[in-house]
């Protein structure tokens, strides 16, 4: 018995030592590339990356970890993401647990370089949370444009604290972007107000639109809970179908980062009760559209959602 044991131990030890020797040599040789003098900024979601691009302007080179159509809940880091995080001069993330366990890592990295949640300025009154667990607020704040403006101010302040030399540029860029967002906020309010109140109901698969609903007085009915992983109950589907029929709601919506199947079940349920509901279009929820398309930035994404909803419900 003891001979077996020592044999494994020797084998194991040599394996570990072997790997140590082989890899000790080839790590840590990542010299920073000489860029155009811009700060390397890494952001998690497209929405956050967009703010940094707008406010940072020519002084930043933004890398985004979660691409178009990626659900942040389901994001998996790739080998290259390690370098993208490691080589960043400053990191921005959304926060409020949107990035899940990654936040714990960000907090650790935060000891060696600035790692900033853009939602830090939001107060308890700004946030929505299930009364049963007030300490775990809904993270989907970007659909209330006025709240996202606070995120822009946060990024501006963080960039100024990080690089005071370019304070004037950051302030001016933020000013300009905030003005655009203010206009967008007014546009969304005006557009949605044109739908009769009784029919101003947004039915989607995943409860990402609570803030949107509060800001623009739209009633939001969802199928799933907050997390894309939670299952919807049979009763949820039934209840939703009944509401659709009772209130003559014309359309329901699918989301870019959530499968269509669940919402299609609702459409069929309503059809069985002789009420025809159309699928009003695809909304962007946890991720923006592909880069280069109009929905590939925050302004375009919100505008797309508002126009799609208004077009289908009016």
């Amino acid at each position, binding site marked *: 018995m003891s001979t077996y*044991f020592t044999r*494994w131990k020797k084998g*194991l030890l040599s394996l570990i030592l072997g790997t140590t020797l082989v890899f000790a040599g080839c790590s840590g040789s990542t010299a920073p590339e000489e860029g155009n003098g811009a700060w390397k900024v890494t952001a998690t979601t497209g929405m956050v990356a967009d703010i940094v691009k707008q406010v940072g302007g020519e002084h930043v080179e933004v890398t985004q970890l979660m691409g178009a159509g990626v659900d942040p809940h389901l994001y*998996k880091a790739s*080998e290259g993401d*390690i370098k993208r995080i490691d080589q960043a001069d400053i990191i921005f993330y959304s926060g409020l647990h949107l990035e*899940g366990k*990654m936040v714990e890592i960000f907090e650790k990295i935060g000891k060696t370089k600035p790692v900033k949640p853009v939602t830090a300025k939001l107060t308890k009154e700004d946030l929505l949370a299930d009364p049963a667990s007030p300490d*775990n607020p809904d993270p989907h704040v970007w659909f209330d444009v006025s709240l996202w403006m606070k995120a822009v101010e946060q990024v501006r302040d963080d960039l100024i604290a990080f690089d005071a030399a370019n304070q004037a540029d950051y302030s001016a860029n933020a000013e300009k972007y905030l003005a655009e967002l203010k206009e967008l906020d007014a546009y969304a309010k005006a557009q949605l107000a044109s739908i009769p109140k009784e029919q101003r109901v947004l039915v989607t698969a995943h409860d990402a639109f609570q803030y949107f609903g509060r800001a623009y007085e739209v009633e939001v009915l969802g199928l799933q*809970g907050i997390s894309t992983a939670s299952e919807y109950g049979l009763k949820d589907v039934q209840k939703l179908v009944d509401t659709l029929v009772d209130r003559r709601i014309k359309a329901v919506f699918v989301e870019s980062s959530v499968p269509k199947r669940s919402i299609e079940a609702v459409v069929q349920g309503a059809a069985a009760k002789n009420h025809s509901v159309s699928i009003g279009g695809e909304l962007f929820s946890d991720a923006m559209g592909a880069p280069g398309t109009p929905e590939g930035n925050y302004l375009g994404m919100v505008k797309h959602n508002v126009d799609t909803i208004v077009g289908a419900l009016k």
Partner: protein
Amino acid sequence: MNSFWIILTGSLVAASCGFLGCFLILRRMAMLGDAISHAILPGIVLAFLFSGSREILPMLMGAAIIGLITVFIVQMLHQSGVKSDAAIGVTFTALFSVGVVLVSLYTQQVDLDLDCVLYGEIAYVPWDTWQFGGMDMGPRALWGVGGVFLFSLLIIGLFFKQFKLCAFDPALAAAIGIPVVLFHYLLMTLVSLTTVAAFESVGAILVVAMLVVPSATAYLLTDRLHIMLFISMAVGVLSAILGYFFASWLDSSIAGAMTAVAGLLFFLAFLFSPRHGMISKMVARRKIHIGEA
């Protein structure tokens, strides 16, 4: 340094899973790791309901307790005559569904799924360091996984003969006075501790795969337990190292690449194993044929 920590953590997970996996394969319980990965859902929900937070410590405790309960129920059912695959299937689906029901009843509005609050990601291992008395002691995952690995090596090393006999011929083991049931429970406890610690460090898929694939590969290559253990650990470690380089080359998920390499190594063994491989069997069959003619 990052690459080194990731490869070392991957290798440690692979070695400790590959090691215990051999015993599981022999007992026809290879999918126990997968079962545990699902069964611990009620553990994290209950831990959240009691503590009100998604901090890692309560989550880990909830998972560890339910992990132990899972393996004990599996062992108990198996002991009373239920086939091992059925015992595993019944236990984990029952526990997982309890978790799903709990989520839909109490935590609808909280983002509480295993991926998000418990399962780690091997890519983040280098940054998640353990601070002890102001000193940086290296990645926390290494200490966690390394600790349980040493513990299993110690326990199984001390009682190797007993574990071996219980795995191959429990009836004989019982006949010569070895407390078979105790050793079964001991092994299951080790499996549960190892998997939960590894889930927290590197995520589920890598652990589930490393419990099955390297030991299945080793089983094709040898019929002797101590050689099988060694090959299994070596296959696991090799998968971790090669997998990392594939991930680096393709800029892909690290755990995914490591698992894929393990699958590839299994396939090679399946084809080319000297005694149990496809090709050697074909050759042997031809020989018999020629001999008959």
